[in-house]
């Protein structure tokens, strides 16, 4: 969809006559909105669209009519709504702000409270913003028109390097360094999860320990297979600093004790909920599985 030159002329004519001839101008603005909507994907944000609209006023950016710009922009947003095109939120925020600006511009200055910028000041700031951005875009174009190395001007083709102290010179830039540092950081974050090794007492360890200690308990009679009762705590290693390890010794020792009960090497007794647990060595037939389940 290309706009012919005549159309463009009509458009600019329409814009020039904006004040005197509102209906026609509306039409012009609508065409313009449609043109912009066609290109919207190329724009980075509402400021750029505003700049494009301001340029269509064909005057020095310092002298653009902000009111006219506001109308053009609001028309652009209206048209997008009519065509059911979804605009990014920032475009709508800009529209709201411009509506506000418009009302401020139309409001007599006296009614604005002291601290806030007046409509004129806000308009001036917007004008400055557009002017500055426009200037930077133009500067970019000018830069590209310059004598670009490798396009208009060429460096030595058979280039050599000056040797420094017979050392190797590496071709590495700050970018490389920053880039690689970023990658290290990223790698750390995505690297596969390696669980922190917990320091815990294993079942084997507890079982070995308990067997030894139960065997060393004094017997209740000279020929008795049974030892005296001793609390679970007395089987635990001493001076444990790490509380997590401490808890694991309790759990592992109790489990190891229960295993020994099943095998017929030990008895376990608890007189009530939360009361101390006692263990003693014994000698009887191993319990059968169903029996163990029954106990539990």
């Amino acid at each position: 969809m290309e706009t012919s030159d005549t159309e463009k002329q009509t458009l600019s004519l329409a814009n020039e006559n904006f004040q005197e001839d509102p209906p026609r101008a509306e039409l012009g603005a609508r065409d313009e909105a449609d043109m912009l909507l066609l290109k919207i994907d190329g724009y980075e944000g509402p400021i750029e669209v505003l700049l494009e609209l301001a340029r269509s006023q064909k005057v020095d950016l310092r002298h653009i009519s902000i009111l006219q710009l506001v109308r053009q922009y609001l028309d652009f947003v209206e048209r997008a709504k009519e065509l059911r095109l979804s605009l990014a939120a920032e475009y709508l925020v800009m529209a709201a702000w411009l509506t506000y600006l418009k009302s401020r511009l139309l409001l007599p200055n006296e009614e604005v409270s002291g601290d806030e910028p007046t409509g004129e000041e806000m308009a001036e700031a917007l004008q400055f913003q557009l002017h500055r951005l426009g200037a930077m875009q133009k500067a970019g174009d000018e830069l590209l028109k310059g004598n670009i190395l490798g396009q208009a001007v060429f460096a030595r083709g058979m280039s050599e390097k000056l040797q420094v102290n017979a050392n190797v010179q590496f071709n590495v830039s700050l970018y490389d360094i920053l880039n690689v540092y970023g990658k290290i950081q990223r790698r750390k974050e995505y690297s596969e999860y390696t669980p922190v090794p917990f320091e815990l007492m294993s079942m084997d360890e507890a079982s070995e320990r308990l067997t030894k200690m139960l065997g060393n308990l004094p017997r209740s009679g000279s020929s008795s297979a049974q030892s005296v009762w001793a609390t679970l705590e007395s089987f635990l290693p001493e001076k444990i600093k790490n509380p997590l390890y401490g808890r694991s010794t309790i759990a592992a020792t109790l489990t190891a004790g229960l295993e020994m009960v099943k095998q017929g090497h030990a008895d376990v007794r608890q007189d009530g909920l939360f009361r101390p647990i006692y263990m003693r060595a014994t000698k009887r037939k191993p319990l059968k599985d169903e029996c163990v389940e029954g106990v539990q």
Partner: protein
Amino acid sequence: MDRITQKRLLEALLFATAEPLTPVIMRERLPEEADLGALLSELQKEYEEHGVQLVEVGGAWAFRTAADLGDLIVLERNEERKLSKASMETLSIIAYHQPVTRAEIENIRGVSTNKGTLDILLEQNWIKPGRRRETPGRPVTWVSTNHFLDHFGLEALTDLPGLDELKASGLLDRRPAIETIPDLFDQEDDESDLHQDEEDEDTLIMEEG
């Protein structure tokens, strides 16, 4: 070493390398008594009418083909990576407003910087981090490199197209637009305070929206 040999040596050095040579590097290779400045300007003058010319790039020197021959020299070009509009806009803002923080770039552009925009410029070695701004958060500033000057055929930053007019018209102000309106903020803030240090990330739009 006689003066002629000094000049020939300097010529050979400059001719051999593609990157501009800094005075430090050139002095290292010339005898102590050599007058580098005089030798350079003599060489520059000798080559004035030639197809290759001696040019200054940000204080460093290099031979380059004459600009008027650009269209005639058709070399096999390494494919030019076309710079996006956003990147070019960002590059000019950094070149003209440097040192400039990312927040200031965003103020000027009115959009937040996409990932990859500064990245590309950094990769091309056209920008580098400058001094941190001494404001809360101590943000990094960005400045242009000598390689930028070399690539765009500029002798110095003062050669940036239109720099004087831009400066004169106040367009190289890094502040959010609303703060540039003189009546609005404390009148006693005079012009010397133009690039004041306030790090206001909010653009004009955000403040009022």
